[in-house]
Each structure stands twice: as C-alpha cells, then as structure tokens.
C-alpha cells in the first residue's frame, strides 16, 4: 500500500499538473498535424524536459505520447489523412463514416475505444509487466518474420473491390520499400545515384501523399458547386445501445492484439491497427461493411493501435528495450535523469513505476475529456468554405511533412505520392496495401535474411511461435480467397469463367 501512496503522491504536486496539461496540449495539437508524429514531439520536448525533475519531465513526455494518440485520429476521420502512422487503420472506416455525415459519432466512438484500449493495456502493465515483457525476448528475427508475414495477409482484406488490384498495389508497396541500402549487406538498390534515395522513400511522406493529398485532389477533381456534401457537424454524436454492443467484440479483440503487438519491440500502433482491423473483419457478422463505414472496424483499429501504448511501456520499463520510437527517446531522457529502465526498476523503484502508470492513466482520462469537449469545434472545421478547407489541408500536409526531415526532398515525395495516389484512386487500386507493403516489406526481408544468417532456414519452422504464425498466415491467405471465389461463383451464372471470378472479386 505504501508503494501505491508514495507513487501517487507526486501527482498531487501542482507543477506536475501543469506539466500534464502542457504535455496534453502539445500532444493533441501535434498529433492532429499530419506528419508530426508523437516521437518527433517527444524528441523535441525532451530538449526542454531534461532540466525538470524526473517526475515533471515524465509527466510532459508521457502525456504528449498519450495526447498524440488521440490527436492523430482527428484528421484520419475528418480528411482521410492519418495524423501519425498509428492512425492509418482509422482511415479505413473512420473516413467513410464521416462521409456519411457521422463524423461526430466516429470521433466519439474512436475516443472511447482509444481510452479503453490504453486503460486495458495499462492494467496489463501494472499487473504483469515483468513476466509479460519476457515474451518480447522470445521475438527474434524468425518470430518477427512470421509476424510480419501474418501482417501481410491483411493486404487481402483491405483490397476492398478487387483482390488482384489490391495485391498488385501491395507488391508495388513492397517494391518501393526496397529502394535504398540493402538491410544486410548495405548494397545500393534502385538508388540511381540519387543520395537522398540511400535511406529509401520517407514513409510518412508517402502515406500523407497517398491518403491525404490524393483524397484532397480527388475532391478537387469531382467537386460540383451545386452539390452539398454530407460531411458536416450534423449528425448524431452518441452511439446507441446497439452500436455500443456491436463494438464490444472488436474492442476485446483489439485490446489483446494491441497489447501483444505493443510488447514486441519494433512493432507499433501502425501494424497493430491494421492487424486488429483485419482480425475483427474476419470475425465479424458483417464483414462486408468493413471499409465502408463500419463502427466495428473503427473500434477494432483504434483499440488495437492504442493498446500498443501499454504494451510498449511494458517492454521499455521492464526490459530496458524501447517498445517503439517514442519509447526510444524516453529511455534516452530517463538515463540522463539517472533512471535506468530495466528489471531492477520494478524492484528498486516500485513507486516510480506506479507514478508512471498513474501519469499514463490520468493523461488518458484527461485526453478523453478534452477530445469530447473540443470535438464539436473540430467537426465545425469541416463546415468551413471549401477554399479554406482545401488550402488549409494542403499547407498543413506540406509543412508537417517538411518538419519530419527539414528537407524539401521529403515534400516532393509527398506531392508525387499524392499525384500517384489520385491516379490509383481513379483506377481502383487501393492505397492501403501500398502502405502495408511499405511498412512491412523491410521488416519481412530483413528479418528473413537475419534468420538465414543466424540459423539457416530451419529456424522458421522449428521455432514454435514462428511456425504457428506462419500457419495462421497461410490460413489467413487462403480463406478469404476461397470464400470470395465461392461467393462470386454462387452469385454469378454457373457458366462464368473461373478466371474472371477470381480477378473480379465480388
């Protein structure tokens, strides 16, 4: 009990409260800014917080971490632009909901499941951080490879209209991910003598281009002055009892997936959101609504990407290994404060662990409050005349992208991706698989080759975790294809050629 009291006491300090609020403000603001990620905000803030007391500093950094995780959902839902990569999966159902005039409902539902996801994962952190963190150590290259292959099967689910176009788009994403230096030998691939290409295409610039800019260009393309848009503040805010019940299953699923993926080092909210969305779709009674404005899809995506926060924190504090890029910065700051994250943090300094958990939980609850209060204003932004809205989205995307590297090259990549994204959108190639390929391709290749370097090919099937995940991936790959072929055969006349059935998909 003493530990609990000692751990909670620092939170009563008014300066800590000020730090909490400052962190929340910065977090939600930058999270909502496309391109500016939580890790970037935490890194910039870390320059200031070094001079503070550790608890004050942690209050700032952790609340930015939490706040950004709420802020990034807003542009995803309202303008199809993920505020940070963790909100990629949010766009899949959040934006369609907004287009149907349900932006308010989507934002409220998203805030609640985000809160729930963080709280569940924080409960895991408090109750079982040390034993569970050991799980992370079992994730070597073979297991990571299997997890990533499993993640790649999501490509099939997010190819909403044509599996063939979806998979081609995915291969395109995997292909552009190979640009740059080879992860194992360091040889140049597709660099063509351009120095900037040595580190590959900047991921954040590509997603902002493919999602946000492409959607903006599409609106410019189809805009008709006399047609009113259904996106507006009009619409119901509060979910009905039925909708709440509907979200229960994806929420439970998302919490588990998010926490586990969060614990795995180097896998964060972006991957977790997509896997959570995919699993929920496969288990749903209405999978056909996913991607077209399903509350279940939104709930699964946001729960699982948010539940990575507690998982990451677990790995970081209990092992001293950063669970994601924000936590890498956090470890740097903690070490300067003289705090060494690792197993002994829990035995030597349990009060601090309680304080950290308390900060996270308080920040989560405050974030929920703030996001509910300011939601109306946020949706109002969409009522702005379109000349403000369009110009605003464009300049925010440009500046946000620029600040990731302070280099114009990154912004050019964003603009190019926007044009490419528009072409893909008009020809029915989905952007989701490209991003998935870009995200997972380097992990897949590098971990496969690491495995081969260390143990040779047998490790993939002899390691139990890896073997199970690979089998799951195979099943995941086969079932939707079989189901679609069967469904389209049933729907169409028996004389249809099977090739067309496979290609057309529904």
């Amino acid at each position, binding site marked *: 009990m003493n530990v609990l009291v000692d751990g909670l006491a620092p939170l009563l300090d008014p300066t800590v409260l000020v730090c909490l609020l400052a962190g929340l403000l910065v977090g939600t603001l930058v999270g909502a800014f496309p391109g500016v990620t939580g890790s970037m905000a935490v890194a910039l803030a870390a320059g200031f917080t070094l001079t503070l007391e550790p608890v004050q500093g942690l209050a700032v950094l952790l609340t930015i971490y939490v706040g950004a995780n709420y802020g990034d959902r807003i542009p995803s839902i309202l303008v199809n632009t993920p505020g940070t990569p963790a909100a990629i999966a949010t766009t899949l159902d959040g934006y369609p909901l907004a287009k*149907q005039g349900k932006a308010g409902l989507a934002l409220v539902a998203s805030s609640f499941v985000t809160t729930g996801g963080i709280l569940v994962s924080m409960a895991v952190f408090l109750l079982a951080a040390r034993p569970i963190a050991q799980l992370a150590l079992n994730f070597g290259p073979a297991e990571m490879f299997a997890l990533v292959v499993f993640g790649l099967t999501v490509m099939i689910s997010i190819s909403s209209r044509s599996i063939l176009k979806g998979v081609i788009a995915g291969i395109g994403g995997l292909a552009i991910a190979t640009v740059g230096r080879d992860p194992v030998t360091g040889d140049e691939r597709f660099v063509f003598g351009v120095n900037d290409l040595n580190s590959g295409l900047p991921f954040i610039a590509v997603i902002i281009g493919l999602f946000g800019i492409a959607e903006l260009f599409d609106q410019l*393309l189809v*805009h*008709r002055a006399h047609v009113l848009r259904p996106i507006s503040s009009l619409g119901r805010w509060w979910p009905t009892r039925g909708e709440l019940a509907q979200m229960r299953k994806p929420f439970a699923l998302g919490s588990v997936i998010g926490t586990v993926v969060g614990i795995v080092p180097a896998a964060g909210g972006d991957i977790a959101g997509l896997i959570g969305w995919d699993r929920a779709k496969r288990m749903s009674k209405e999978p056909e609504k996913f991607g*077209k404005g399903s509350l279940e899809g939104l709930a699964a995506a946001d729960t699982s990407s948010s539940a990575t926060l507690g998982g990451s924190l677990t790995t970081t504090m209990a092992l001293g290994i950063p669970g994601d890029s924000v936590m890498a910065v956090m470890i740097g700051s903690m070490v300067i404060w003289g705090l060494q994250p690792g197993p002994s943090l829990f035995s030597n300094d349990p009060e601090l662990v309680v304080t950290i958990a308390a900060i996270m939980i308080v920040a989560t609850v405050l974030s929920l409050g703030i996001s509910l209060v300011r939601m109306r204003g946020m949706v109002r932004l969409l009522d702005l005349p379109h000349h403000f809205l369009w110009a*605003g989205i464009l300049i925010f995307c440009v500046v946000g992208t620029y600040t990731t590297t302070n280099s*114009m090259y990154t912004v050019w990549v964003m*603009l190019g991706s926007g044009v490419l994204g528009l072409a893909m*959108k008009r020809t029915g190639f989905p952007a989701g698989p490209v991003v998935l390929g870009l995200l997972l391709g380097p992990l897949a290749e590098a971990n496969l080759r690491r495995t081969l370097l260390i143990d040779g090919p047998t490790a993939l099937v002899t390691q139990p975790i890896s073997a199970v995940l690979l089998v799951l991936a195979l099943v995941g790959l086969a079932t939707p294809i079989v189901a679609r072929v069967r469904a389209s055969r049933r729907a169409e006349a028996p004389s249809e050629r099977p090739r067309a059935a496979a290609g057309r998909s529904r």
Partner: protein
Amino acid sequence: MNEARHSQATPSRTDGVAPALGSSDEAAVPAAPTSRPLEITSALGALVFLGALAFLARRIELRAETGGVDPRWWPELLGTVGLVLAVALLVVSVVRPASRDDLEASTRAGFVRVGITVALTAAYLVAWPLVGFLAATPVFLLALTAVFGGRGWQVLLGFPALTTGFIYLLFHTLLEVPL
C-alpha cells in the same frame, strides 16, 4: 457491385438526424463511368512498373557475390510475382473492365483545378528555400484560396496571414523546428 452502393447509401438514410443532406446528393452526383481504355492503361502501367522492377532487380550491383538469398533475391521475387499478376490484370481489363460506380465522375473544371494546384505547390516548394517560409507561404495560400473560389480581401489576405502566423508560431517558436 451494387452491394457497395447500397451499404454506403443506407446508413446515412437511417441516421435520422441529417436526412436532408444525406440524401440530397445521391441523385445529383453521377458515378464515374466504366472505362475499358482506362482499365487497360492502368494495367499496362502496372505491367511496365513491375517489368522494370524485375529487370532492374537483376542488375543490382553487389560488392560481394554470395548467391542464395542476396540483395537481389527479394526484389526479383516481387518483380516476377508482380509481373504474372499484372498480365492477369491486363487480361481482366480487356475481358471485363471493372466498374467504377464507387467513384464520382470527374469534371473538366476539376482536372484544371488539380493541375493548377499541383503546379502551384511545385512552385511553392521551389520558392520556399529561395525566399523563405514567411514570404512564400502567404502568396501560395492566397493563390490557392483564389483558385478554390475564395473572394473578397478579408478572405484573400486574412486567411493566408493567419494560417502562416499560426504555423510559424507552432513550429518555429513553440517546437523550435527551423522553417
């Protein structure tokens, strides 16, 4: 394919709160027409891209030839699989071009608008390093607002100034990111 249209239309009707807006645009917005040439062009585009990938992957220079799973292996695999799928897509696009009923039809004015926007953005990206953020941004925003239909001096001057100021304060002053 009708299914897609239904599931989009139904919820906004049953929503109940915004019936007027939710339903008014259904008839007014024509869907993009199915286009065989467009499908074939896009399939050819995919074919060229993936063909180039397969070709260039073989020509990656290595400092040490190890054979087996080397830096060429993964791009070659992607290129080969992709090429097969692209050929399949080409066949599909000729035999049965996919419907585009989930997209709204584009307008001629829309193409012009996209073209001007891309050109303006490109000009802005060139101008920014030359004249600085504070000089280039208001002009860019003014031009964009005008192209998108904003009129009146408050709109054309006030909005660019306010937005530029907000971004500058947030990044340059608060976060210390040099713009």
